[in-house]
């Protein structure tokens, strides 16, 4: 079954870097995004399942808030 998983921002901040692109194959724990948080830290976003990037919903420099969808991942169960 194909299923889309959401990658969600847990922070308030700004997208510092995007390490993936549409269609990228991602592995468990791989760094996908870095977020420059409001507190001034750089936080890395990774994902617990391997799959393919279905779409990226944000761009570098964009403001994010907790709950915002950063990307959809196509996974296989």
């Amino acid at each position, binding site marked *: 079954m194909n*299923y889309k998983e959401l990658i969600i921002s847990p922070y308030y901040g700004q997208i510092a870097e995007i390490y993936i692109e549409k269609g990228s194959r991602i592995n468990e724990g791989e760094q996908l995004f870095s977020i420059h948080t409001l507190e001034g830290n750089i936080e890395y976003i990774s994902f*617990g399942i391997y799959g393919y990037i279905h779409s990226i919903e944000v761009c570098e420099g964009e*403001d994010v*808030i*907790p*709950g*915002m*969808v950063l990307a959809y991942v196509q996974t296989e*169960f």
Partner: protein
Amino acid sequence: MNATALEKLIPLTCISMDAPEKEFLHEFRKSTASFLFLTKKNKIHAYLNIDELDNEERFSLDKKMAETKAVPIKNIGECKLGSPMSFAQMFQIMGEHITLVKNDEDEYIGYINRVDALIELFRQENINTDIFKVILSSIPMGIFIVDSERKIVNCNESGLKMIKSSYEKVMRAKSGEIFNEEHIDTVFSTGETLLNQIHIKEDMGVLVDYSPIRNENNEVDGLIIIVQDLPMVEEMAMEIEYVRDLNTDLNAILATMYDEILVVNKEGKLLRHSESLIHDFWGVKDIKELEGKNLLEIEKSGVYNPSIVRPVLEKKKKVSIVQETPAGKTVLAVGNPIFNENGEIHRIVIALRDITETTMLKDELRETKRLTRNYKNELEKLKNKNNTYSRQIIYCSSKMEKVMNRIRKLADFDSTVLILGESGVGKELIARSIHSEGNRAHQPYLAVNCGAITEDLLESELFGYTKGAFTGADSKGKVGYFEQANHGVLFLDEVSEIPPRLQVKLLRVLQEKEVTPVGSTKAIPIDVQIIAATNRNLEKMVEEGSFREDLFYRINVIPIQVPPLRERPEDIPLLAFHFIQQLNEKYKKNYHLSPDAVTLLEVYDWPGNIRELQNQIERLVVTADDEVISAEFVAHSLKFGPMKRTKPMVTGILPMHEAKEHLEEQLILLAMKQYKTTTKAAQVLQISQSAVSRKYQKILKKQTNNPDS
């Protein structure tokens, strides 16, 4: 126009407009005719209807006023003497009070009144006299005449076409059934004219005027319904219907794709919404309660978090957000901005999907997957382990289970192990499984049988030597087993056979963890796990002085006692089946043991333990005539010596007391035969001497009475 009409011809009374005012007025006042024709340059261009002027007008009329009151001559119908009148001329006649008459030379010879002209018209034989019908059918509008009983009494073809009906159906039909009854009632009750009423039914779309017909008392006596065909209206109506259907379908489709769809304006006010509502999300029972409310304010009040409208307004692009309510609802909201032609946000379409359950299931699934992966790894580990030597250790007895558990516990440590057990119990196999189960599984494993080689050779094999250490040595020198097994496991089988001189050297290796090759003075540090094995009683050897006590303690760190096969008979069938299957596979045969044969194997003593069992099975298979190996065949092959403490064997069913008697007899005879005296026999049989004596006498007596038995 014929001669009868000529009688009604009235000569023209003309006044010239070119004449001076005074003369004009003189002529005017002198005239008694009803119609005065005005001429300019001797040409009639207009006429005055004197009867329509009131007294004052007649009195004060001058040239200028005459000009304004005059009707242009071209408005009046004309007819020619001798030629028939057409229907179109008739409308002209009806429109004006008079009709001018011309002679053949196109000169006006006079005029006739309207009534006379019409009479003349109806007199003409070639003209259809159903004038009303002609008029009705000439009008490009539908006309329906309704009487005071509100029934349709007349209509035209165009009307029938427009309402897609037939004359028969319409005539005497109730007008309210075809047209709007409410409007008809209004016209009858108020006398007002209703214009431009759009009347749409499934197959028609028309524009309808409802106009009253009044009688002489000004009462509404009937209606004229004028219908205009509006194909465009019809089309539009159809389109509206189509759009409405489409809307319903789209709503249904959207409802299946998303749980809820909202449209808000740029201020965040909710304009439109789909029919469905995500339960427990908004804190309202019906989504209609949200109509006209501002989502930004709802979001501010903390019904759910975070806001979707604000980020879309700020970013001016599609935003997806996972929203949560305090009650634990999780909703995925996707906000899509819609821009106007100036590039400003006009609307925001928000699609919501309830992912509470999905999120929950997803988390569960993720956890299950994690567990599955762990289990899989564990299984893989177990499988890998079983693939090696521990798989070859076949047992079901609790005694062996204890041994195997001990081996598994040992796996994480590098402790020196001493395997004790009789010859053939599988000590080497156990050593190999300790290696394969342990941390050093991927490091070398070397086995040396200390009893199999001479002292000097053993020394050089174990510790190695440097080049030129002794005559006949390899010129390059030799790396010893200790060095070769560095980081791995060295198995010293028959460790009891190590000569005393080497025992010292071995002790040093174990203590110092370094090895000095023969002929070298330099010690090489090594890290080797030692597994030693012996079938001899090392403690006794220590007592006797043939084995160094300190070495014994050094190697006896973790002793593992492998029980002999006779102490765990339950393992025998398993092992027997295993070996027989090995042989069957190897030689593509199908040998098997009869149940009795298995029992017989179980009761056997197996002094050579598993090695003996393995060889015995091979012998049985090779020598068997039949695929089924019987108990008798096994009995022949095994040496059930009188000295062996085997379990008695019964091969057929017989009464219990008889069996006991037989057994007693056999035992006593056997014991007496071997030990000669009843005292000794009693000791061996562990019963009283008197019992042996009594039973023996009884047997002898029986034998003399019945010498055949």
